[in-house]
C-alpha cells in the first residue's frame, strides 16, 4: 500500500544535498520517514504547517523554510499530507 510513498521518498532522497524527509497526515501522524529524520518530529511538522497556514487562510498552503548556516528544513502541506525535506546548503 505504501509502495508509492516509499518510491517518492527514495526519489526525494536521491536529490543532491537532501539528508532526510518526513511525510505526515492531517492528524500529525507519521506516514513515512527516510534518512536521519526521526518519526517523532512528525507531529511538530504538521503543527508548524497548520500554524503557518493560519497567517493567510484565503491563500494556498505556504512553503515554510527553516534555515541555519549549514542546513535547511522545507515544509509544505498539500491537501491532507504535509511533507518536510531536510537538506544541507
Amino acid at each position, binding site marked *: 500500500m505504501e509502495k508509492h510513498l516509499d518510491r517518492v521518498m527514495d526519489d526525494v532522497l536521491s536529490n543532491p544535498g537532501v539528508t532526510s524527509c518526513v511525510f*505526515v497526515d492531517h*492528524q*500529525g*501522524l*507519521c506516514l513515512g520517514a527516510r534518512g536521519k529524520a526521526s518519526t*517523532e*518530529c*512528525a*507531529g*511538530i511538522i*504538521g*503543527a508548524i504547517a*497548520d500554524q503557518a497556514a493560519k497567517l493567510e487562510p484565503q491563500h494556498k498552503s505556504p512553503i515554510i523554510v527553516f534555515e541555519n548556516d549549514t542546513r535547511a528544513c522545507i515544509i509544505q502541506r498539500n491537501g491532507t499530507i504535509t511533507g518536510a525535506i531536510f537538506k544541507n546548503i
Partner: protein
Amino acid sequence: MEELRKILLELLSKVPGLYCVLITDRDGVPVIKVLTDKAPDLATRPSFLSTFGLAIDQGSKLGLGKAKTLICTYSQYQIIQINKLPLIISFIASDTSNTGHILGLEKYIDPLLVNLTVAVADTQ
C-alpha cells in the same frame, strides 16, 4: 509538585485543542491533573481512565508485544493514553487536534515521571 503542574500547564498551551493532561496510577486515580475549562468531566474520572489498563491487557493478546499507546477518537474528543506503568499519562483533546504533536509531548513528560514512579511503586 507545583513545578510539575507548571510544566504541564505550559505543555497544555503548546498544543492547540489540548484540554487536559492527567497522570494517574493504574487504577485511574489522579496523581496530578492539569485541565482547562473545556475538559469533559466524565473522561477525567477514574472509572473511565482505569479502562486503559484493561484495554492494554487485551491488546497484548494480539501477540504484538506490550501496548505503548492507546488513541481513541470520538466525535468531539480524542483521548491519548501512554503506558508508563505503574503510571498512565492521559491527554484529552479536541477531535481535530494534532495527534502526532500530542504524542511528541511524551519526551517532555518522561523526565518528570522518575520521582512519581518511585513514589507510586512504593505505595503499591
